[in-house]
């Protein structure tokens, strides 16, 4: 797997957050994503999109993220759950 560029990683974190695979940023605190969390999110996205589950930002995954799509998140419930847990 070729290493993705910093820009690709930034875009993919934005994409994964927007479509519900990563928790939405909390404006009251700085947030540092762990590598494990990011890999889990990528793997979940790959499973949802029918791609091979590598957990890495491979070419197929990046190509899928660039495909035209609906604006709504894929995992509404999961993102909401994370937010609820943090509030508690």
């Amino acid at each position, binding site marked *: 797997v070729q290493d993705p560029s910093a820009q690709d990683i930034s875009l993919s974190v934005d994409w994964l957050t927007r*479509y519900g695979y990563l928790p939405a940023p909390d404006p009251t605190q700085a947030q540092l994503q762990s590598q494990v969390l990011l890999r889990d999110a990528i793997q979940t996205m790959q*499973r*949802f*999109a*029918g*791609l*091979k589950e590598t957990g890495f930002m491979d070419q*197929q995954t990046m190509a*899928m993220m660039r*495909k*035209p*799509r*609906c*604006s*709504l*998140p*894929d995992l*509404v*419930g999961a993102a909401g759950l994370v937010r609820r847990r943090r509030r508690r």
Partner: protein
Amino acid sequence: YALSGSMWNRRSLTWRVRSFPRASGLNTDTVRTLMQYALAAWGTVGGLEFREVEAGAAAEADILIDFSRAYHEDGYPFDGPGGTLAHAFFPGEHPISGDTHFDEEEAWTFGEDDGGGTDLFAVAVHEFGHALGLAHSSAPNSIMRPFYQGPAGEPSRYRLPPDDQEGLQQLYGKGPKTPKPRPSRKPLIPPPQPPRQPPGSPSEPGPDRCVGGFDAIANIRGEIFFFKGPWFWRLQPSGQLVSPRPAQLHRFWEGLPSTVQAIDAAYARPRDGRIMLFDGPRVWVFQDRQLESDSPWPLTKLGLPAGERVDAVFTWPQNGKTYLFRGSQYWRYDESARSLDPGYPKPLSLWEGAPPAPDDVISGNKGDTYFFKGSYYWRFDPGSVVAATDSPRPMGPEWLDCPSSSQDPPSNPKPRAPQSPGDCDCHCNIIA
């Protein structure tokens, strides 16, 4: 399917197109008619009724449709051509519930093939699924997959995939057995098309993929290629066809002579990814799409007897060896030793339940083995040489995005015997 958690508490809903796309070639009547058909696709399945209302009606429509650009005051800005295409709000009591927004800056089209723009009808069906309470689905053939999947076909004949039908019926129950009247608007006429291209162009009509009977089928880098005459279709790992229209063999496989009008079998060589297309007693070897300079090879180079040809080829991931089938026998080729294993050919009946003279055999992306013949396929679990109990099954609905035929038997159908008696090896079992 996945449910959003909300639904309408009534079965009769109103809709209105409040703003239209200014840049696309679709006129307002076409847009309204496409919306009506897209809603009807759901209404038929769930027994829902959709009524278009005029502007200024006593109550605003439940499903208000807009073509907007960039920031449009709902927290989901559009991003110009490509990227996000549309969105809709789930059912509820808020004024915006059910409303559906399309990015006005997309090149919205109707009745065109892939590449000409974004098919408004396909996107509208998807968005109305949200407006009725469905969330995104990961099912391969679902219209509720979040990614644009290309044109959905003729609106008046469109039928929702089973996953989406079940999702809607989970919310609203089944529609009446007698189908509701279809939309009453005059039939849609696609916008004027560019003049027809000369014969031999990619737009020349190809064969019907849904009738089966492929010459060759191969798993090439995770995509399944279905070859028929001088055409082929590609099925992506996601289960989506690259295009419902076939591509032309000679426009893709560069260097393949025009005299080759059909492929008998194909596979991707595991040791270096070269793609091998079998044509009678020869093999054409490609690196990606380019023909290798030293090809074609005679089949004898693989160790097969002179004058032999093959019906099917595939590499079994369990042992990395390549199996070559002809009639009711097969050989095993050792890719690392580059020779046939001793003791072959062996009878095909060792693959218990497999059809004789298969059209082709592939190894699926999850390790299952699939034999294809006619319009049926036989599945073998990973590592197994016994056909799964639900085999054979019709291949069209599961592989090629074809409607289920009413002639398909419910389970374990018995395909017809070979047409000419000489082709039969006369074993008397359920598939021969």
